[in-house]
């Protein structure tokens, strides 16, 4: 943890814009822009979970990728623990790759089928913890697997030997390998059965308590987002149309789009 005062948010996004050029014709001239993220601002306090909800195409995944610098930013700023990440050089950004990690939606495509679980989970250690010996790395991978509720000797196996829920746990173990502070969870439970979804959501909450993690939780299902988040952002067409504490979003939705999302959640 840094020595910064606790009142400052861990992440502060200001007027973030991510535009993609639309090219056409033989010369691939730029004929327009897709405004995937169109001027959004929000903050994520340290140790909290902020939910980002919206339909496919609303720009929520692009927002997550832009924060993790996997997609270039068109304009605006992303401040992490007081440092503006949008202007730092690639080299200066390197330590933040360790602090900011991502968990992806599809546990089938996010693990390399030809790499053993050990290789997948230990790969980030080779980059950020070069000093570790082979046996120390093995020790660390087995601890990580146990932490996410798997058995240590699973590390010798390959992705196809695991179910979707187990693969998502492996993805979480890999994200935790470099001891991050901030995890961007991009639809981590959308591809899972409801019963497995409940296990993964509980695991993420346990890990947050144990390790003091901060989450940006991206999903399209408002019921899951409301459950896990302290604060919810509702996004559509590249803009945040409503932001409120999780319980207020449900009890007193303001924007028609939020109401539409609430109405779409099946009730029992």
């Amino acid at each position, binding site marked *: 943890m840094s020595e910064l005062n606790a009142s400052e948010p861990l992440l502060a996004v200001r007027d973030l814009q991510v535009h993609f050029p639309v090219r056409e014709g033989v010369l691939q001239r730029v004929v327009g822009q897709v405004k995937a993220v169109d001027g959004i601002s929000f903050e994520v306090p340290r140790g909290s979970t902020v939910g980002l909800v919206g339909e496919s195409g609303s720009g929520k995944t692009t927002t997550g990728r832009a924060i993790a610098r996997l997609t270039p930013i068109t304009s605006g700023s992303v401040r992490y623990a007081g440092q503006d990440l949008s202007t730092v050089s690639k080299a200066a950004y390197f330590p933040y790759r360790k602090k900011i990690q991502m968990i992806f939606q599809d546990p089938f495509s996010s693990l390399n089928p030809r790499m053993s679980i050990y290789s997948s989970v230990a790969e980030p250690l080779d980059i950020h913890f070069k000093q570790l010996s082979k046996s120390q790395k093995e020790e660390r991978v087995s601890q990580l697997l146990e932490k996410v509720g798997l058995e240590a000797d699973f590390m010798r196996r390959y992705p196809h030997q695991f179910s979707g829920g187990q693969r998502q746990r492996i993805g979480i173990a890999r994200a935790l390998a470099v001891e991050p502070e901030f995890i961007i969870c991009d639809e981590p439970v959308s591809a899972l059965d409801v019963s497995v979804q409940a296990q993964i959501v509980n695991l993420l909450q346990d890990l947050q308590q144990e390790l003091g993690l901060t989450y940006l939780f991206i999903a399209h299902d408002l*019921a899951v987002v409301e459950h896990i988040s302290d604060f919810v952002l509702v996004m559509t067409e590249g803009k945040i149309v409503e932001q409120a504490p999780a319980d207020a979003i449900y009890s007193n939705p303001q924007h028609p789009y939020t109401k539409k999302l609430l109405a*779409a959640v*099946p*009730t029992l």
Partner: protein
Amino acid sequence: MPDLLKVKDLKIAFQGSDESIEVVHSIDFSVSGGGETVAILGESGSGKSVTCLSLTNLLPPAPSCTVSGEILFAGQDILKMDAKALRQIRGAGIAYIFQEPSASLNPVFTVGYQIEEAVRLHRPDLSDAKARTVELLELVGIRDAAQRYRAYPHEMSGGMQQRVMIAMALACEPKLLVADEPTTALDVTIQAQIIDLLRELRSKLGMSIVLITHNFGIVKGFADEVLVMYQGDIVERGPVETVLSAPQHPYTKALIACIPKLGAKQHRLTTIDHEMAASQ
């Protein structure tokens, strides 16, 4: 209504490396004709998808997979039919829509071509298959159907692709539609639209539906009867409202409880205790 589909003592086993593993243990159920909807609920691995594939004998042939029991469709046993008779049932009698529309469509042909292929195959009597295809696209709520006929799958969203799959399934007016997790890969808002579409088509065309899902949420208000499958057995069955309001089996209770509820902030979500569920 007489039974359109009657499944008796259905057992499905796969050949493992040294022993045969039974994945569905003697289940019975039936679906009435003319618009009854039966939902089969269960987690991955409960046997619900292999059950639905067995309905038109789509599982791999023996010895790798053995299916026993009776599957009576309009009085005829599917398991005793030869390949030619099965072709008459597949599509025209029982049609399917699957979970992942982008994996079910061929990326190099237009959606119109792919629907028309099904129309030509099953309705050789029609002189204008294209007109019928456009009509089907309109039926599933695709606007500018004549234009969208020429679209490739990648030019459509997931919800639109699923509508195309439904149009293809409806090409030969099946009496029974088997929907295997039709909305699992879709957003909640699109999920609501697809369920509404199925409800509308059911009343318009009078077809019966077998809906396979792991989510109790989409069953309510859509299905008449629900079967809960767990590890190859039907552990609970009954009218949807009864099962939802007073579930008897601990597995059913857990499956209902693990869905996050809006506005009811729980500290932790309920998970399924498999030892407890299996002990019953």
